[in-house]
């Protein structure tokens, strides 16, 4: 009995179309890809004044430092007035005014700060309506902390705004 064995046929699949589609997809993803800059947050607490707080009140109220940001021409920063009920200081329009503010806060915390004290220090900003938001962020940054040897030294964490929304 003669058994015929046929050699298996090689089936060649044309992959050209698949490669074309793959390149189309790649171009689509490259064109729609968007590299977004890293964002960060500053948290501010604005509790409703009408509602009582659920927290147990401290024996002593928090120490408040009031910082007034005054606007000049075109919404640029003019002066920074600091008042902590003990002394008042004004930082004039200069390149280093925010650095001076940071140094003032740092000295204030070092002079008053007792690690065992439960008195918290918080900052209340009184900001002119016309002041550009970028300067507000610089002020928040100035009181929040500073970079020392590549590390962040935290200063004040409790920040709130005085309501000046009607000035516009």
């Amino acid at each position, binding site marked *: 009995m003669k058994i015929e064995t046929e050699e298996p046929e090689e089936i060649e699949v044309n992959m050209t179309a698949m490669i074309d589609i793959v390149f189309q997809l790649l171009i689509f*993803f490259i064109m729609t890809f968007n590299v977004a800059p890293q964002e*960060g*947050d500053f*948290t501010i607490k604005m509790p409703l004044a009408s509602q009582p707080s659920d927290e147990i009140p401290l024996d002593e109220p928090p120490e408040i430092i009031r910082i007034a940001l005054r606007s000049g021409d075109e919404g640029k920063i003019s002066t920074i007035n600091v008042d902590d009920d003990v002394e008042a200081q004004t930082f004039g329009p200069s390149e280093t005014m925010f650095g001076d503010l940071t140094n003032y806060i740092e000295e204030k915390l070092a002079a008053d700060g007792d690690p065992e004290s439960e008195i918290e220090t918080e900052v209340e900003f009184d900001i002119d309506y016309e002041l550009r938001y*970028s300067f507000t962020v610089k002020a928040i940054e100035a009181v929040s902390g500073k970079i020392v040897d590549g590390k962040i030294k935290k200063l004040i964490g409790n920040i709130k705004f005085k309501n000046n929304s009607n000035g516009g």
Partner: protein
Amino acid sequence: MKFKKKQKSEILEGDLTPMIDMTFQLIAFFMLLINFSKVDRAEEITLPVSELAVPPDGSLEYKMILNLEPGGNVIFAGQRIQNIDVMGPILNQEIANAERENVAAADVAVIIRSHADAQTGLVQKLISKCQDSELESFVLRVNDRESK
């Protein structure tokens, strides 16, 4: 005169398999990284820059992102709102959505992405409007200076 026979030109076949492998690798890379949701961050807003800003808290239960343009327009969920004063119903709707997910209004994180040149009064007006709807937790979002 001796004429040399022209040699038949050889067809060089290059192996393109590694190129196709790399192409698939690139496709997989972009497919994993690409994010089509533009409703949360409005690209036309230039955030102020700060090096002290804390990286965003990914553990927030419920958040709403309000983008504020210099002219006072607010962009929320892809919708442009011309006036902050008319945001009340929109905020109340969002709070109702949060309460359906068992998140109280006081626990809703309001993330404000304001343009650097916007007036601070507009930001305060927006915060005040949110407070009228009993929102208490606010986050001011900025660009991390290290990424610039």
